[in-house]
């Protein structure tokens, strides 16, 4: 069995705060997970959940209170590991006195590339991220979306085996998001591993082989999007129209009306009784569909549970 691309074992991060820094806030608690070689792994969570903290720990921008992590089998303290990883920070900001070409060349110089190789790669990457025409403009004149594109280019310029992207879609217009999605899929095709954090769940559902959901600094679930949403109870939705809207149908109390159509959501066991009732009322059935729980539902349930727990702790503390 091959070594996972990223292995995280019991990683925790506490920040001291308050007078004399005696109090401690836990940003990440005992995180253990793996990202397999060649997969696209989505790291999901609301703002402040611990996604960026985890990524910063992996990139040694901050240091763990406890726990360890390895990337491509090497400890994150091993500097040589960084030859083979690419990283896009959240809301990236770069030296604004440089042009995109100069910035990429600057970063490429840390990767033992020849001048000719650097030149070729920089031009190719700028084209790929759609900045070919703006390559000679200083970054101080770039929009947020353009900076995001430069950031993506510098992360993959040296063709790393593992690419870590912190909110890569942030600040991008729909076209930009589509381009980033294509680049991520292309990286997967090339056999590279991609770990990216996001709170845009549709992106995760569309791209990821597996996702990890983190809320309140704790990992709440890891699996394929299908596995995770499979945990949720499912129901049915019936859409129908009534020939005589004045007719009294008890089901209408639970229904919502859109245009001429009514929609009602029911447990699967109640569907036949509801259909009988509608038939008796002379309703026209438009559709009966299974409600497929989305990643968003799973995610929202976790966030709600976490908030409820936090409130309970606060109340008992009082």
């Amino acid at each position: 069995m091959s070594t996972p691309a990223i292995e995280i074992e019991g990683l925790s991060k506490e920040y001291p705060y308050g007078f004399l820094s005696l109090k401690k806030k836990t940003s990440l608690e005992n995180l253990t997970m793996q990202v397999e070689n060649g997969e696209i792994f989505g790291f999901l969570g609301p703002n402040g959940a611990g996604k960026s903290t985890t990524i910063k720990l992996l990139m040694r921008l901050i240091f763990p209170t406890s726990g360890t992590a390895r990337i491509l089998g090497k400890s994150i303290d091993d500097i040589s590991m960084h030859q083979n990883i690419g990283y896009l920070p959240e809301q990236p900001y770069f030296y604004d006195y440089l042009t995109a070409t100069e910035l990429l060349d600057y970063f490429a110089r840390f990767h033992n590339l020849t001048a000719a190789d650097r030149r070729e790669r920089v031009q190719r990457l700028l084209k790929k991220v759609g900045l070919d025409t703006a390559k000679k403009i200083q970054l101080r004149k770039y929009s947020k979306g353009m900076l995001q594109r430069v950031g993506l280019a510098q992360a993959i310029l040296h063709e790393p085996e593992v690419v870590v992207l912190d909110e890569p879609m942030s600040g991008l217009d729909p076209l930009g998001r589509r381009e980033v999605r294509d680049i991520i899929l292309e990286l997967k095709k090339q056999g590279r591993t991609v770990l990216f954090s996001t709170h845009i769940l549709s992106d995760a559902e569309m791209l990821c082989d597996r996702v990890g959901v983190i809320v309140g600094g704790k990992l709440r679930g890891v699996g394929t999007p299908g596995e995770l949403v499979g945990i949720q109870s499912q129901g049915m939705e019936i859409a129908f129209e009534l020939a005589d809207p004045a007719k009294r149908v008890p089901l209408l109390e639970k229904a919502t009306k859109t245009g001429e159509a009514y929609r009602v959501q029911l447990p699967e066991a109640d569907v036949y009784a509801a259909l009988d009732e509608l038939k008796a009322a002379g309703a026209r059935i438009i559709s009966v569909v299974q409600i497929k729980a989305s990643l968003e539902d799973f995610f929202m349930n976790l966030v709600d549970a976490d908030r409820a727990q936090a409130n309970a702790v606060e109340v008992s503390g009082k």
Partner: protein
Amino acid sequence: MRNVWVVATNTFREAVRDRVLYNLVFFALLMMGAAILVGQISIGIEQSVIVSLGLSAISVIGIFIAVFIGVGLVSKEMDKRTLYALLAKPIERWQFLTGKFAGLAMTLTVNTAAMTAGLYLALWSVKHTLTSSDRYLIVAVYLILLKLVLIVALAMLFSCFTSPFLAILFTLGIYVAGLFAGELRRVQAVNLTPAAMSMFRAMSYVLPNFENFNVMATVAHGRAVPGSLVGQGTLYAILYGAIVLLGASLIFSRRNLK
């Protein structure tokens, strides 16, 4: 060393593009004004007035750059988060720090060299000639440059663990205290206890002794600077600077970025 060089050259490029070298215009204007004024009011002391004024300006402008830009070298990168993408590259934090230091040292060298050329020009315009004793100016400027480089190291050290404002205060405070390091060693007061005397002596050794780099009066009067003094100043700056940078690297290597 390659990583250090890459960061250093980029730091130099940043200084040039951020118009740090524009201070040379101010220096040029100051020297031109001084040359005109001295030509009119000084009789026989043009040399010492121009040299004193020029060296003082080189020193003050240099200190200003060393402190304010030195503090910003690391803190600005942390505040703006430009450091994030960089530290994810195969570069050690000490290499980044040393590169930033070397980059500003390069900037100060170019800046000081240009100002020295301006000073020679001012001297020539006043005296209409240059004498052999004028070569001692180079020695004085060299010692000022060593002082500036040491100040950069101190500014970087403080900026590694405190806010930019406090780092500026600490650096300027240490600089002023360092000007009196020699005095502190020689202090003799009847009402001081032996413990206090020992403390002053210890402080005088810990503080950077900036007196080592001041030969302005000697050079202004056209006298040669002893080679031993230059050697001692060079060795002192290298050792003290290396210790300060080592301390900065140790602190920065475990610093959590925001």
